[in-house]
């Protein structure tokens, strides 16, 4: 029964057995050109890579989609973004949930959000690191006036090597 097993055939065709310098056990020193690949260890390694990638696939709570032209500032000590109303600032223009709006409309839209949604609301502010505070401050003021009490400044997670 064991004569036909996969393990036995692997042992029989095992390339290193012939190449042993101390006590070669192959077919009387005849080296085989047949290369038998052991897939089991390879699959083990692949499975570990798949599990690692699945675990690091991404934060499910992360609802922030950063456009390519926004270079976020870096911070070592940061929190999870989580849920929130996103206001972006790109080149002096303001975007409310990816739709461009005037600065004068920001407060009205934020008040609408506060009135329609229940529970603790937070305002996620997404801006380029070169943005002046002059452009950022109206959003904080508008959020405060609307009733937001938690502001989340989107940052890139840094490993502390700055």
């Amino acid at each position: 029964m064991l004569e036909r097993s996969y393990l036995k055939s692997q042992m029989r065709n095992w390339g290193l057995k012939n190449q042993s310098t101390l006590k070669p056990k192959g077919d009387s020193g005849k080296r085989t050109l047949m290369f038998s690949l052991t897939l089991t260890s390879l699959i083990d390694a692949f499975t570990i890579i798949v599990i690692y990638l699945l675990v690091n696939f991404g934060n499910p709570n992360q609802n922030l989609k950063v456009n390519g032209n926004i270079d976020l500032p870096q911070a070592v000590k940061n929190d999870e973004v989580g849920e929130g109303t996103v206001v972006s600032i790109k080149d002096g223009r303001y975007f409310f949930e990816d739709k461009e709006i005037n600065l004068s409309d920001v407060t009205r839209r934020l008040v609408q959000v506060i009135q329609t949604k229940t529970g603790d609301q937070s305002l996620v502010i997404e801006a380029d690191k070169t943005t002046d505070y002059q452009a950022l401050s109206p959003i904080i003021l508008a959020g405060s006036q609307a009733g937001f009490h938690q502001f989340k400044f989107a940052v890139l997670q840094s490993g502390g090597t700055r």
Partner: protein
Amino acid sequence: MMTAKQGKKDLNFELNLLPVFDILSCCICFLLMTVAWIQIGSMNVNQALGAKGQAGTENAPAIWAYLNPNGQVVLNLKNAKVANWAGESILPGNASDKSISWNIVSQRIQAIHNAVPELKTALVMPTSKSGYQDIVHIMDILRQTGVADVGISPL
């Protein structure tokens, strides 16, 4: 009629690993292409809405950090006293490019926090020309030091 030898099935099971290998390769390719390598976090700031009155509440030690346009940072300690210190530090910026000298700021904040361990509140006071990166950086330094509640003052 079936003999005993013919009816005896081989109990060795050989799994064909090549399809498993293919599937895993496809999974790895898909995950490598779609995984988010850049992790986005947030710097959370709780702003007071002014609903509660200040009467009867004990003022906790706080540090106010003013970011001046020439790279100068002024640290002002409120509601706490440190021996042999007036409560205000004026930290000069880099003379060459008028940027903030972060090493000095970090060391000074750490020294203040060591002197006042109960210091948990900070307020960042930027100017209109303060950069977002600088604001986030000083908030980051404060939080790394142990100051948990960091606020920001609107213009």
